[in-house]
């Protein structure tokens, strides 16, 4: 290896590892990005509208204007990620050309392809993808995702779906780990998950997802973040939870502190006090409203 190598799996997955224990915040402009950086975010996620607004306003949700994302990149020194639509490899190409640090192929935006996800191995830029269960997570990793996050249910301020997805993934991984020497079982699972046996074996051997796994989709309070961390998340994505709260700055700081000290109730108590109104949130009535049911293939 005399020559420089770029875009390797090690570099992509390594970038995700540097985010561990941190909070990644959704932002729609440079001012919000600066506030997030000041509050201690490890990275920001650029998007056109936060999920709560996408729900409220309807219409087609697409990649944010690259001019705005570019301005966010100039405004902060922490990494900048940006969302593209599921299967929309041209949006991903635009984001790579712009030089964002990671692309989120996200169910929060309106899917562009209902059959296929982006072939992420073709890109130099690393990708993060959402998943509801181990099968979805391993398929995304096989496609080249360097990081996984629970889908949860974006823009609801309701943590219940993120909890469900983390629990499902944990129990499916425990199942693999218990059967790590049972090749027939692992072969059956590889078939069920539609991924190579080798990836299933690796997961069984490690007893965890082979890439960094964050929690996302409905996290609105410091205690929500601590809950997800205790369930085994490597870090936290907060979408609407910060800038839809009464006092975004307070919430941002408190969620960063809670993620760091997720297992210390006395610190959680201190940071949870007097934050003001959290985002209101919404209970979904039907499956049609669920963003998590996008891109499950």
């Amino acid at each position, binding site marked *: *290896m*005399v*020559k*420089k*190598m*770029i*875009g*390797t799996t*090690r*570099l992509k997955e*390594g*970038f995700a*590892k*540097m*985010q*561990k*224990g*941190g909070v990644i915040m959704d932002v729609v402009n440079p001012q919000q990005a600066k506030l997030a*950086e000041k509050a*201690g*975010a*490890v*990275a920001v996620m650029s998007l056109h509208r936060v999920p709560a607004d996408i729900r409220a306003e309807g219409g087609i949700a697409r990649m944010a204007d690259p001019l705005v994302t570019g301005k966010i*990149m100039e405004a902060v*020194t*922490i*990494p900048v990620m940006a969302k593209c639509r599921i299967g929309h490899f041209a949006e991903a190409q635009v984001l*790579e050309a712009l*030089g*964002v*640090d*990671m692309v989120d192929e996200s169910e929060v935006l309106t899917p562009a392809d209902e059959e296929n996800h982006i072939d992420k191995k073709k890109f*130099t*830029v*690393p990708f993060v993808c959402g998943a509801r269960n181990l099968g979805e997570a391993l398929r995304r990793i096989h496609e080249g995702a360097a990081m996984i996050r629970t889908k949860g249910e974006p823009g609801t301020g309701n943590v219940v779906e993120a909890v469900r997805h983390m629990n499902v993934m944990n129990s499916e991984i425990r199942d693999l780990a218990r059967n790590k020497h049972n090749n027939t079982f692992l072969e059956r699972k590889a078939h069920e998950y539609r991924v190579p046996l080798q990836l299933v074996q690796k997961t069984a051997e490690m007893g965890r997802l082979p890439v960094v796994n964050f929690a996302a989709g409905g996290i609105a309070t410091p205690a929500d973040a601590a809950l997800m961390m205790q369930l085994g998340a490597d870090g936290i994505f907060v979408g609407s939870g910060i800038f839809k709260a009464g006092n975004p700055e307070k919430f941002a700081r408190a969620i*960063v*502190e809670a993620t*760091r*000290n997720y297992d210390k109730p006395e610190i959680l108590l201190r940071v949870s006090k007097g934050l003001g109104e959290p985002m209101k949130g919404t209970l979904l009535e039907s499956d049609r409203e669920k963003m998590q049911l996008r891109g499950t293939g």
Partner: protein
Amino acid sequence: MQGAVSEHMHVVEKLGHSPVWVRNKGDLEAIRALIIPGGESTTISKLVELNDLYGQIRRMGQSGFPIFGTCAGLILLAKKGDGEVKRTGQKLLGLMDTQITRNAFGRQRESFEIELDVGKMKNFPCVFIRAPAITKTFGKCKPLAKFEKFVVAAEQGNLLATSFHPELTEDTRVHEYFIEKI
């Protein structure tokens, strides 16, 4: 702290030692050497300050306690920062006679791997991720590896710093080198 903590702990364990994850002041009393991991340096420096670790780590470093900084850790160990460090109001530990620059090689798209000689360690696999680098060494600091116009590994008695991430490879030589400082 935040970042690639478990990866370092894994290497330390592999070398037959027991790693401790330092998050608060009390944790510093239980250790014989400290590794400041890669992660977001802006975030890590805030956490170091917030949790009141700053003064104690600085005093420990000044009195000969072994400290190894990778990537973000290299920034925190430095005496002099760059414009970005100033802009974000980042507080440095100021232990090593180095001047550093953040994101010396560019953003994640420009992150790279390459084999370099690090001191006496030949062909070490170096993983650079949005890496900082040392633009100048002075005083007692000794460069260990160079790439392009930058110093990417350096030591100063009990202190060791690398721009790259040895914890992301199977090669444990840099960690072994550091542990010898105890």
